[in-house]
């Protein structure tokens, strides 16, 4: 079970961010047994059509408990303001840029990303600007209020009993 859990929490999520607004344009999730290749060529796991992205620009691999980011392209990778050849990614969220003028990617794994400081704003052409959003702090407060009630705890037990009964059947 712990194995399954650690497998689950070491999954990496990679988000392609819009250069202007910082909003998520596309995202992918990979398990720690995969080598994730990033580049312009269609055979990559993450394909990004951008002139500043090399055909094979970067790799992500899970090595000894952490995800490693490796440069493979000629435009380089900017991570924390520095060009890198290879660097471990910290647990939680990390952001890097493909080339000095290329797109920005955000990764997260290992621990829940605290989004408490921001409000996710969703907007797409055709919707009123900034019309959709989630206040994560408020959401967590409301969830906690409900999840701490005896009734909710009882439901969690009901769920586990049902699952056990189904597994037996």
């Amino acid at each position, binding site marked *: 079970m712990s194995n399954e859990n650690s497998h689950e929490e070491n999954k990496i999520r990679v*988000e392609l961010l819009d250069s202007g607004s910082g*909003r*998520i*344009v*596309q*995202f992918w999730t990979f398990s720690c047994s995969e080598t994730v290749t990033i580049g312009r060529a269609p055979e990559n796991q993450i394909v990004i059509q951008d002139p500043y992205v090399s055909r094979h620009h970067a790799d992500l691999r899970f090595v000894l408990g952490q995800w490693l980011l490796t440069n493979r392209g000629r435009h380089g990778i900017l991570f924390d303001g520095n060009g890198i050849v290879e660097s471990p990614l910290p647990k939680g969220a990390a952001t890097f840029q493909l080339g000095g003028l290329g797109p920005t990617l955000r990764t997260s794994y290992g621990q829940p990303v605290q989004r408490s400081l921001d409000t*996710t704003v*969703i*907007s*797409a*052409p*055709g*919707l009123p600007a900034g*019309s*959709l*959003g*989630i*206040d*994560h702090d*408020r*959401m*967590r407060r*409301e*969830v906690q209020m*409900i*999840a701490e009630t005896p*009734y*909710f705890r009882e*439901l*969690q037990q*009901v*769920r*586990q009993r*049902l*699952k056990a009964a*189904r597994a037996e*059947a």
Partner: protein
Amino acid sequence: MGRTVSIHSFRGGTGKSNCTANLAALMAREGLRVGVLDTDIQSPGIHVLFNVDVTSIEYCLNDYLWGRCAIQQAAADLTASALLPGEDASRAGRLFLVPSSIKTGEIARVLREGYDVAKLHDGIQEMTRDLNLDILLVDTHPGVNEETLLSIAISDLLVLIMRPDNQDFQGTAVTLELARKLDVKDLLLLLNKVPAGVDQALLRTQVEATFEAPVVAMLPLNTEIAQNASGGIFCLSHPEHPFSRRMERVCRKILGLE
């Protein structure tokens, strides 16, 4: 053992009952034995879509909850409503509805006295067992209360319906998080009433990234459907309409056929 699917939305007016009724009819047409349970006791409505005159039927969910009947006795056989005119009944599966009472006295009693939520749990299990259902769709009350949490907790799959609207998004985020805390892993989002001209691909990506759950369909804001809202099963009367096509896909996804 039949599957239980809860269909929920955080606020009213999302088109939840309309989607539920259409899905139920489509599933019956796939040859399944389908049950629909209207647990929106405070504001029942799905019976209207099936053209059921609740005043003429003997028992409702309320009667079961007060111990006046078995759940099977409160189930109306609506298989005929899933058939096209002149179609042979042997082709379809079966479709049953357990409605909630529309009598104000009954609604008032629930509001005044409450009822034993455990009894609702029994009712859901008995309905699946006694009607030998392949799938039970639970049309829930909007918001988060004891019975919606119960129906989420005992579901194999939760479908959350929302409009592209701030309050819907915030409330759906809360419901989704509660479902995850209840260890409900099969979750689908359905975006309804999406205005024309919206970049749907981008909206879908952003919604999936934000909620970390798949969007099963995006349905357009459509006056034809709105006008039809209380007059029958749209997917059957307009089978070629894009709405109907998308609902068929939702149906297949829920059934695990694609």
